[in-house]
């Protein structure tokens, strides 16, 4: 071993290998940045504990909230607006952390629920994940198409819409948990309530994407505004259909007596008494 370390050629080889690894790393970084905008993704995952708690609370009880506009991030030198503040500093900013985590929780929860009925099969996880992704993709495509048809100047990011379509999983998780713990008509109440809450949340949040100019008071402006408000209400109402699709294959699994919530992630177990 010492002979290798003293050998000049070996030293050269080590150096060369090190630089090759560095070059490879740089290459990957450069190409990854070309296809995926990493700084932008970091913006969406820049969350804090208090933000996540407050956001979940807002998603379940959105009716008391007064302030819905996003805070603008200003450049320190000029004072011009250069974007929006990250979710850590702004409750109304969309984030990707909650959608990703709640989607994974939803997939696992469906697995647990089917496991309590002794109907678990590994395929269920894949099928559920595929269905969840398909519903999200479908919703984003529909919103994009609607924005095109209604001539909404779409400066909104694609990822923003992904965030907003992912928030419905919170309501679905609560519905699933409640249905497993307290069977009966409570499930229906919780199902409609959570959908109402998420629909209301989307109505207020998407307003700033779909209705950018509130000051346009011309005749055509009013006409466009009416169409866009209809579009907003349709999106909010569609949440009910999407939730129904996402919960549809679990309706048939009836409830067992032993509590499956013990296996659920602790964050959501704590939430159950609040609903």
């Amino acid at each position: 071993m010492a002979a290798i370390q003293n050998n000049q050629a070996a030293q050269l080889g080590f150096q060369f290998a090190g630089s090759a690894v560095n070059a490879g790393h740089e290459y990957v970084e450069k190409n990854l940045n070309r296809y995926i905008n990493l700084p932008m993704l970091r913006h969406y995952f820049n969350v804090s504990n208090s933000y996540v708690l407050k956001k979940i609370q807002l998603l379940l009880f959105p009716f008391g909230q007064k302030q819905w506009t996003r805070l603008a991030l200003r450049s320190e030198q000029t004072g011009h607006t250069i974007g929006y503040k990250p979710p850590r500093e702004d409750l109304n900013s969309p984030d990707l952390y909650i959608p990703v985590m709640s989607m994974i929780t939803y997939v696992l929860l469906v697995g647990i629920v089917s496991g309590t009925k002794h109907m678990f099969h590994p395929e269920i996880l894949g099928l559920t994940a595929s269905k969840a992704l398909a519903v999200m993709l479908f919703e984003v495509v529909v919103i994009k198409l609607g924005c095109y048809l209604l001539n909404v100047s779409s400066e909104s990011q694609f990822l923003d819409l992904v965030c907003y379509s992912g928030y419905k999983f919170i309501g679905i998780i609560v519905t699933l948990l409640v249905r497993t713990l307290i069977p009966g008509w409570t499930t229906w109440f919780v199902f409609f309530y959570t959908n109402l809450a998420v629909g209301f949340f989307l109505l207020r949040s998407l307003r700033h994407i779909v209705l950018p100019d509130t000051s346009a008071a011309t005749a055509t402006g009013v006409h466009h505004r009416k169409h866009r408000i209809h579009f907003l209400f349709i999106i909010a109402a569609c949440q009910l259909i999407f939730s129904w699709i996402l919960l549809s294959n679990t309706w048939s699994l009836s409830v067992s007596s032993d509590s499956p919530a013990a296996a659920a992630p602790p964050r959501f177990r704590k939430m159950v008494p609040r609903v």
Partner: protein
Amino acid sequence: MFALGTLFYLGLMLLNAVAVLHEQRFLSKIGWSIEQLSGFHDANQEVKLRIIHLISAIRMLLRIPLIFVNSMVIIYEIILG
């Protein structure tokens, strides 16, 4: 079961449905042909105008790719469906 594969088929079938609309035989009869568009239009019909543009764009751009994708789906369905 609504899943990613179903969504892909849904999109493909919808694109096919738009692509088979005939310019003279169908679209011009209901006044949705791109050739009939005059220079001016009133603002109330903007949604219709955009749909017409979308249809003509799909018909023009996606005709050749749709042939390939459709034949691949047909072969897949014959062998593995």
